[in-house]
């Protein structure tokens, strides 16, 4: 029984051992499962080994990152021993399936090599190496030590291997957990470090994860707070738009799209918190995380706030756009040459810049009306000339209130001019104001409602500003040019009324740079006594001031000339006038009283280039006898007259210095050139002489730096005949008398005889003027001849007299009576095809 009992006892002991082993294993497993730190697992493993196996000491070593076996847990081993044996492994590191190795008697062992003495010295008699094998192979070893030599049974080794496996599991799990922890840490670090918002959605669109950036961007204090909310409530706090500003449906969001099967989605989202007017922009990328079933389980959404960049680029684009459309405005001002051209271009540019359907420029005309001057996008036939009274219609209201205006819906604004009403839509308009004066209105209109914003109005204001300056400038310029041109025309006649005894031709060449008239002028006018007042001058300066001064001097010359026909006295008075009235205005001038009957010239020269006298014979000389200072240059300047005889048919050629000025040649050379040119032109008709001289002296292609004025007066009187053709107007009468005076005086008539002839001749001429042509314009001829000791006068017209005798002659009787009393013969021939002719003869010295 005892044997039985022993066997039973052995069996029961074995069973108990087995149960103890199992309990130990269970404890170990539980410890492994329970252990939060690997060190606890090692300690538990050592404890289990100690209780389950008959070993004196044990140790756990684990391969570190460098591949070296390191002691992780042990009992009763000296530091020295551990230091000496650490790193030793009986297996090669890449051993796929290492097996336990047992050294039953260390003292007799040969395999431990030099370590044997160390092991012996530690008091170890026997040991077993039990490999710890993990997923990738050998990861450590379990050491079992006995102080005395002994063998290790298979069961013991198997139990040790099982414990080692548990340790391996624990180590493996720890590694995985470590990796996981590291990866989590990394993720967390990433989440919190990046400015990008990261949200992980599950397949139902719920938040799984979010970082602080995502929370902040979504309007939460922290990620936790955000995760506590539902994605739906969050979304309801925002209005989402696509890039073009269209509302964005939920299913179009990137996360939704990848959850719906797309492998990657990206889109720019514009969003605005409800109740805010600030737009923000986000670049949203989403990628799916597949679940076990291969279907997307999560959507990882990364979104980057690009509001700042957007705004910056919008700003710079806007700035560029603004610049470019302003540039176009400036270009218009530079390019256009006339006001109308400028306005047409301007409205075109405005229309394009605002993207409006129409742009219209109205300018204030007379009678407080705005008149459409330029329009783009409107049939010119419809728009041009449209008139809007101030205060009426849109333009009229903008003008009268001077208020930049936007009308979002034209149908609500009445009344509207027809061409605007047709279209409806909206309008933006601004007044054109220059220095507080209203010049007009510029407006743009669109077929769409609410098409214009404040930005557009600002642009219109700028355009209107430019336009106002241009309009004002053009107006001033046009006015100045008109005034100057009018002055020039009136002061520089290219045709002269008939002057008794002379022919006159003149030419004026304006300087190339000037739209403005220069200060050059000339004049030839009949004095009452048959003499001619000839003048030419050059006011220093250009423009209206010079032209006005020129007019003043010219008028003064005429007035003074009639009072006292002495060039020197005329100059003296004009000099005082200029010194009194104009501080810095002076003028060179040549003035002469030409007597074609006496064939003399009385002249004075106020600093003017010397006038030329050309004879029929082709000789030339300069009138240099009476030179003095320019007019207005010096108060009290003295001028004197010089009298010179003139040859019959002589030409007086006066000019301004532009004709002989040259930087390259001396004055003498130029004047010699002028003499040559003038003599060479003598063969031409007088009317072409000034122009021909100018052409010869002034290089054709060159720019004319200064104005040039030329006037040529030719003596046409011969001693025997006076021939005049004059308009049948009362103003011809003084001319007739002047010519007659000069001619008859030269023919030797006395003062009384001259007056008699004047009266008689004037009577004949007055009759023509009063009766020959009725209200029609006409002319008459006066032929006077000195013959047979007397003077023969013929006055003829081509009019039709209704009666045999001129009415005036017959009725009043005075005319005919005077003619008969004052002459020796009177003969009237009427009704001829040539009209009427009155012939008279008066003996002289009777």
């Amino acid at each position: 029984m005892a044997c039985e009992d022993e066997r039973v006892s052995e069996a029961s002991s074995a069973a108990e051992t087995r149960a103890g082993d199992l309990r130990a294993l269970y404890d170990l497993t539980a410890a492994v499962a329970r252990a939060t730190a690997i060190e606890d697992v090692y300690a538990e493993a050592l404890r289990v080994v100690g209780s389950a196996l008959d070993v004196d000491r044990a140790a756990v070593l684990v391969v570190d990152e460098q591949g070296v076996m390191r002691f992780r847990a042990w009992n009763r081993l000296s530091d020295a021993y551990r230091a000496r044996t650490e790193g030793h492994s009986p297996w090669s590191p890449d051993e796929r399936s290492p097996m336990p190795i047992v050294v039953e008697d260390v003292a007799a062992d040969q395999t431990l090599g030099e370590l044997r003495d160390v092991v012996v010295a530690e008091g170890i008699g026997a040991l077993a190496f039990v490999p710890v094998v993990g997923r990738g192979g050998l990861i450590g070893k379990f050491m079992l030590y006995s102080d005395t030599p002994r063998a290790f049974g298979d069961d013991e080794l198997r139990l040790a291997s099982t414990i080692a496996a548990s340790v391996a599991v624990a180590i493996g799990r720890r590694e995985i957990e470590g990796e996981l922890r590291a990866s989590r840490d990394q993720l967390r670090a990433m989440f919190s470090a990046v400015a990008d918002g990261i949200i992980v959605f599950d397949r139902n669109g719920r938040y799984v994860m979010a970082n602080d950036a995502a929370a902040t961007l979504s309007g939460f204090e922290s990620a936790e707070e955000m995760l506590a909310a539902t994605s739906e409530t969050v979304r309801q706090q925002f209005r989402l738009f696509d890039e073009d500003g269209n509302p964005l449906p939920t299913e179009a969001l990137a996360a939704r799209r990848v959850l719906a099967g797309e492998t990657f989605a990206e889109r720019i989202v514009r969003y605005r918190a409800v109740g805010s007017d600030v737009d923000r922009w986000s670049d949203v990328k989403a990628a799916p995380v597949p679940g076990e079933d291969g279907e997307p389980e999560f959507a990882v959404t990364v979104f980057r706030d690009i509001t700042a960049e957007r705004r910056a680029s919008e700003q710079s684009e806007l700035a560029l756009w603004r610049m470019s459309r302003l540039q176009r405005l400036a270009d218009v001002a530079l390019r256009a040459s006339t006001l109308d051209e400028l306005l047409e271009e301007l409205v075109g540019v405005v229309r394009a810049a605002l993207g409006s359907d129409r742009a219209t420029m109205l300018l204030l005309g007379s009678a407080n009306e705005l008149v459409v001057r330029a329009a783009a996008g409107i049939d010119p036939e419809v728009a041009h000339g449209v008139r809007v009274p101030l205060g009426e219609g849109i333009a009229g209201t903008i003008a009268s209130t001077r208020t930049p205006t936007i009308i979002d819906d034209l149908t609500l604004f009445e009344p509207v001019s027809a061409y605007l009403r047709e279209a409806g839509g909206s309008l933006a308009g601004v007044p054109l104001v220059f220095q507080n004066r209203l010049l007009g209105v510029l407006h743009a209109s669109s077929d769409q409602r609410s098409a214009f914003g404040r930005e557009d109005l600002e642009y219109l204001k700028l355009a209107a500003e430019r336009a106002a300056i241009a309009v004002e400038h053009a107006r001033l310029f046009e006015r100045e040019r008109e005034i100057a041109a009018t002055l020039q025309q009136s002061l520089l006649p290219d045709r002269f009324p008939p002057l008794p005894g002379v022919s006159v031709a003149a030419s004026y060449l304006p300087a190339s740079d000037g739209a403005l008239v220069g200060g050059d002028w000339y004049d030839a006018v009949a004095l009452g006594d048959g003499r001619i007042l000839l003048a030419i001058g050059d006011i220093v300066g250009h423009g209206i001031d010079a032209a006005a001064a020129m007019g003043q001097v010219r008028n003064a010359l005429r007035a003074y000339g009639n009072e006292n026909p002495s060039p020197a006295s005329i100059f003296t008075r004009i000099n005082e006038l200029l010194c009194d009235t104009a501080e810095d205005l002076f003028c060179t001038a040549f003035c002469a009283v030409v007597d074609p009957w006496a064939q003399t010239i009385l002249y004075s020269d106020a600093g003017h280039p010397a006038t030329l006298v050309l004879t029929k014979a082709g000789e030339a000389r300069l009138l240099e006898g009476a030179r003095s200072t320019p007019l207005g240059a010096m108060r009290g300047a003295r001028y004197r007259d010089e009298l010179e005889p003139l040859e019959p048919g002589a030409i007086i050629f006066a000019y301004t210095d532009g004709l002989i000025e040259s930087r390259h040649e001396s004055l003498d050379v130029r004047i010699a050139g002028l003499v040559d040119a003038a003599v060479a032109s003598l063969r031409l008709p007088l009317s072409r002489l000034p122009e021909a001289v100018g052409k010869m002296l002034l290089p054709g292609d060159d720019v004319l730096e200064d104005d040039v004025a030329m006037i040529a007066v030719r003596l046409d009187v011969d001693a025997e005949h006076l021939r005049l053709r004059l308009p049948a107007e009362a103003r011809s009468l003084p001319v007739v008398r002047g010519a007659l005076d000069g001619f008859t005086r030269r023919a030797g008539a006395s003062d009384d005889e001259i007056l008699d002839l004047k009266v008689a001749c004037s009577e004949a001429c007055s009759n023509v003027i009063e009766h020959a042509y009725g209200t029609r314009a006409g002319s008459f001829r006066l032929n006077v001849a000195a013959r047979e000791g007397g003077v023969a006068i013929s006055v003829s017209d081509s009019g039709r007299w209704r009666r045999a005798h001129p009415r005036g002659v017959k009725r009043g009787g005075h005319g005919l009576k005077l003619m008969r009393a004052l002459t020796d013969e009177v003969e009237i021939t009427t009704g001829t095809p040539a009209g009427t002719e009155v012939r008279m003869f008066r003996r002289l010295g009777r």
Partner: protein
Amino acid sequence: MQQRITLEPRQDHSVGVVSLQGELDLSNVQYVEEALLEHVGDDAPGLVADLAELSYVDSAGIRLFVEVSERLRRNRQAFALAVPPDAPIGRTLSIVKLDLLVSIHQTVEDAVEGIVASTASG
């Protein structure tokens, strides 16, 4: 427009006196007629035109003097010309016997006196 004639008006014993200087012809008769009539007040007894410095006159001027004389007479006002013996236009006036139609005196004083006297007696 150049009138070639100057009119200098003054008063003498409430009689208007206008001195004509220059030339009088068809080209300026209308201007001179208006100017003369302007210088005689409604209450004035008459007007004297001093022609001492008139250098020229023809039938147009003569018609003017007759016209002015007739208009003033209708208004019970007198009109007289002062023409000195050496006046250049005297010969012209005498040819047409203007003194038959218009009162002509050698001096302004005579002309004024004549008007004042006729007013007093009339």
